[in-house]
């Protein structure tokens, strides 16, 4: 193989080289960007759960409270027993767990959405501590409350006030701007989990719908091994009953509705088509090139080039051409990814995951998690694309080179 000859062939047959490189690079760019988009939607779908440090949320829907008085469960989240939590915690693939207790409390003069949280557990709503707008975060072991800032403004609640909820009093130690925090498991009032459990256990209307004991909760957050999320979700559902609502990133992916989001098959088939286009372009261009150069190859053989010399020459030309196409395709894909990164995507949060009473202001309004589509091209995908392009070049060059190198010089030079 002679690199000078390779260089001259590629640069002095510019039109052919440019057509081949552009054609192939489009195929490679399509392949990369389709997969990058698919990955971006998958990553976006992880965002709502990632915000609360979890990969899976578990709720058990129940009956509608018979009367809206005192502390009740939202119908989307009734009791999860302590022994069920313990059993889930022992499942393979579980890397961490968090719990919370979401209540609707109807006091005579005010309705609250109350969330009992584990203050220090990184899995669950404890990320609220990063969004304290005034005052401080809840301290361990103290019966105190955080109030959502907008709610506090609406009802004139200030840090330092004492509020009464379901007959229990709590000093307000801080205001939290929940609009900046997660969209899942949001409330007007945040209490230590143990305090919320006391309220729930003492509530007759709640007990009549779903028996509740201290240690029970109604929201379960699971952090899982990434490759085991789907299996673990199925196991949890099996363990806790078919009516259990188990949300995973896939649940949000389905809500996104995009082709890229809904179907890995679509991405796979589209990628396959892109690769096929790339292969066909490479093959057609190379085949045309080789057919044009039959006489030239006859001359090479006449002056002493062996079959191996000819094959290696054509193989190198093809590999270099396809490598350039791969790199160009990748560059185009990076440019497209940068442009697509400006797109925003709104992920609808089901009411069940952030339930507020319908009859309260804003109670039935749809909630969205809006974020920029996180399009990026992992190095593994970039490497695969360039490698694939090079392999296509190698196979095409080797196949055509081997075939064309069989020609006898006398056959093509006979007709002067």
């Amino acid at each position: 193989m002679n690199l000078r000859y390779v260089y001259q062939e590629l640069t002095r047959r510019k039109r052919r080289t440019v057509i081949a490189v552009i054609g192939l690079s489009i195929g490679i760019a399509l392949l990369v960007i389709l997969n990058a988009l698919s990955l971006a939607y998958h990553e976006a779908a992880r965002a709502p759960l990632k915000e609360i440090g979890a990969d899976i949320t578990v709720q058990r829907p129940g009956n509608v409270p018979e009367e809206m008085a005192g502390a009740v469960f939202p119908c989307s989240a009734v009791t999860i027993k302590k022994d069920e939590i313990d059993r889930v915690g022992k499942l393979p693939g579980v890397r961490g767990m968090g719990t919370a207790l979401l209540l609707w409390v109807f006091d005579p003069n005010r309705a609250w959405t109350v969330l009992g949280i584990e203050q220090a557990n990184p899995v669950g709503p404890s990320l609220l501590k990063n969004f304290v707008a005034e005052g401080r975060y809840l301290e361990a072991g103290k019966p105190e409350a955080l109030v959502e800032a907008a709610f506090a403004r609406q009802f004139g609640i200030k840090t330092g006030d004492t509020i009464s909820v379901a007959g229990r009093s709590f000093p307000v130690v801080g205001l939290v701007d929940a609009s900046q925090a997660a969209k899942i498991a949001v409330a007007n009032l945040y209490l230590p989990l143990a305090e919320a459990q006391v309220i729930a256990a003492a509530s007759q209307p709640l007990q009549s719908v779903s028996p509740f004991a201290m240690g029970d909760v109604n929201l379960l957050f699971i952090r899982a091994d990434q490759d085991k999320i789907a299996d673990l979700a199925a196991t949890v559902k099996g363990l806790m009953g078919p009516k259990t609502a188990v949300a995973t990133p896939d649940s949000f992916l389905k809500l996104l509705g995009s082709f890229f989001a809904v179907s890995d098959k679509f991405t796979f088939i589209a990628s396959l088509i892109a690769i096929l286009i790339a292969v066909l372009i490479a093959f057609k261009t190379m085949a045309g090139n080789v057919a044009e150069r039959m006489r030239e190859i006859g001359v090479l053989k006449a002056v002493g080039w062996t079959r191996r010399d000819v094959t290696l020459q054509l193989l190198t030309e093809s590999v270099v051409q396809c490598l350039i196409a791969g790199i160009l395709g990748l560059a185009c894909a990076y440019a497209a990814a940068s442009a697509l990164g400006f797109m925003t995507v709104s992920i609808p949060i089901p009411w069940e995951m952030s339930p507020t009473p319908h009859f309260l202001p804003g109670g039935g309004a749809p909630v969205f998690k809006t974020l920029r589509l996180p399009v990026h091209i992992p190095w593994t995908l970039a490497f695969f694309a360039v490698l694939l392009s090079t392999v296509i070049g190698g196979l095409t060059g080797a196949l055509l080179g081997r075939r064309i190198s069989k020609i006898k010089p006398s056959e093509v030079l006979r007709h002067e």
Partner: protein
Amino acid sequence: MNEAILVGADLTKTFDKLTVVRKASLSVGEGEFVALVGKSGCGKTTLLSLLSGLERPTSGRVTIAGKEISGATEDELALFRRENVGFVFQSFNLIPTLTAWENAALPLFPVQMTTEERHRRAAELLEKMELGDRMEHLPATLSGGEKQRVAIARALINHPKIVFADEPTGNLDTATGDAIMAILNRLHREQGMTILMVTHDTEMAKTADRVVRMQDGEVLS
């Protein structure tokens, strides 16, 4: 005639049912310039192909520089041609994307050698062909005569034992053809180059040491 460097004995070549060369025998001595003449279609080029190892005979034997090549494989023939044989074709057959010096050095491309050495050898030959100022030119920018001189340089670059020329002036005007013949004659005269030339031009053939005639696939004299 000096000791024979090329011997073709009882060569027959049949394509399907058509016999193009029939029981042809021909010897060329070392340093001899032989012209193979005959009418168009009489089998001259096919015989040249058989004798040069471009084509394998249906029957008969070819020996070049003492080595019988009739039974060699394609690759063995290619390597043999690279080391022993030079070709000059009627239509030059230069590679359009390579410069004059790169075309001249084409047989050396598969040989382990530095680019500088290839360039030096090609430049030396092109200087002799009075193409020193055309070395970086592409074939498309060369005249017919210049192209054929590049082709002659290519034929000589591997120091061949014999040069096969197939109608080397066939695509050239008379004056340019004469100039090319002068180069071939000079090579023969001054360097003792063995040349077997196919031509249908009897005037050109007269410049050779010996003229061999062909008719209907058979060697007459």
